[in-house]
């Protein structure tokens, strides 16, 4: 599940409350029917926070072993090392790791308790493309064993690609909740693109279902409220139209519309 929203939307605050790091101003927080502190005590919830680094003077293996010792039903150190793909740096001192490696070790620490719910706040910040890919592969393997991952992100693409469910937040409130396709559909517009030289934009705008027309050289871009009706009218009227593409609104458009925020911080 992705917790998506612009900076300042309340993602980290929500996560802090979920983990019991921050008491809610009003109401209560319940995780698996327990208070957050109790969920942590039984090792049901693991987390990787947005900020923070690692303590120095231990090797990666020792640090993970130290953290594992605190939990009631942890993975073995080797399981975690393999799961997160850091077995090759197990012997290295923590302070000698690169940024991406540190991030992966932090992830290993979040995972070591073998939690049912894994909460990740902006998990891939600072990872290079390769680490990021390896990271999401691990996530898939983890969720396929029946566990849940909640991650906060402001990368639209990540939420779109990897989340089964997206909760969109803006100014501290949930503005949409559902699969990515459903959230995109709430925007209710589609775009029709075609190569159609020398045509009058005003005539196109008169077609049924068209809300806005743009031309880019020989290409026309029609924003439609009812793309089916538009296409039915377009083809008989302009048989020379070719390279026709119909696309749904991107998550980005949905994001902008729903959060009512002009600047997406990407």
């Amino acid at each position, binding site marked *: 599940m992705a917790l998506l929203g612009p900076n300042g939307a309340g993602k*980290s605050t929500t996560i*802090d409350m979920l*983990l*019991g*790091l*921050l008491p809610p101003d009003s109401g209560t927080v319940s995780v698996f029917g327990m208070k957050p502190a109790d969920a*942590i*005590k*039984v*090792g049901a*919830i*693991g*987390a990787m*926070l*947005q*900020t*923070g*680094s*690692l*303590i*120095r*003077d*231990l090797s990666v293996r*020792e*640090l993970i*072993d*130290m*953290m594992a*010792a*605190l*939990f*009631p039903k942890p993975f073995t150190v080797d399981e975690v090392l393999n799961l997160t793909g850091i077995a090759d740096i197990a012997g290295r001192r923590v302070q000698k790791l690169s940024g991406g490696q540190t991030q992966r070790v932090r992830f290993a*620490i*979040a995972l070591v*308790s073998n939690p049912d719910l894994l909460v990740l706040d902006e998990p891939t910040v600072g990872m290079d493309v390769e680490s990021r890919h390896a990271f999401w592969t691990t996530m898939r393997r983890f969720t396929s064993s029946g566990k849940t991952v909640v991650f906060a992100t402001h990368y639209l693409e990540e939420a779109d690609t990897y989340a089964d469910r997206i909760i969109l937040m803006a100014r501290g409130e949930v503005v949409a909740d559902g699969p990515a396709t459903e959230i995109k559909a709430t925007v209710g517009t589609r775009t029709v693109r075609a190569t159609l030289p020398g045509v009058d934009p005003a005539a196109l705008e008169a077609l049924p279902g068209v809300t806005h027309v743009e031309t880019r050289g020989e290409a026309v871009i029609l924003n439609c409220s009812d793309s089916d009706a538009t296409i039915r009218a377009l083809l008989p009227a302009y048989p020379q139209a070719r390279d026709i593409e119909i696309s749904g609104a991107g998550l980005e458009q949905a994001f902008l519309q729903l959060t009512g925020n002009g600047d997406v911080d990407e």
Partner: protein
Amino acid sequence: MSALVYARYELLRTFRNVRFFFFSLVFPLVMYFLIAGPNKNVHDLGHTAGFSGYFAPLYYMVSLAAWGAMMSVMAGGARISAERSVGWNRQLRLTPLTTRTYFRAKVLTSYVLALISIALLYLSGAMLGVRLPAEKWLQMTGLILVAAIPFAAIGIFLGHVMSIDSMGPALGGITALFAFLGGVWFPITGGGFFKVLAECLPSYWLVQAGRLGLGGGQVWGAKGWLCIAAWTVVFAFLAMKAYQRDTKRV
């Protein structure tokens, strides 16, 4: 079990931190040899009419042992603020680690360091000719370690309320103040306000513990035990509250 593993790694980390190790253990030794070495044949340090004076290596040994123990346990706070500066405190909060286990590991680490520091100083003292009866060694060491407890609590408290930048000056200033008012550097003489004040400070009783080795000083009366207990309870409580409240993002 988990508490043991955790404490073991805390110790391991401390011993691997070369700079910290050096300043906590080697530095007092170097100071000792620099000060006591040239005076190793002086047997009448601070003698006055009617008082034959101290054996210099013994005098410097007990002073540095008391001072070193206080510094070692307070320095535990500096390690805590360093950990907090990378958000480690929040990470620990996401584990079942209890406040008690956490504190125990921190205090244990500080005490192991303090003990090694004291032992090395005693060894150096013995090399320079210090000889004391067994019960003096034990009495002195035991009381120094007890008197260090409130300082361990103060260190942990400071570690949780100070940023890493302000920790250095804070530790330096506070230890200096405690040392000065408690008579670590200049003995508290006469009665008056400063004597009353000194008797309310744990550093005063730390000094008294060390002075047992000199044949002077006094085994603590009720006042001493009460003072140490009060400082310990107050700062252990404050440290616990500070730790539990300390969950902010860095």
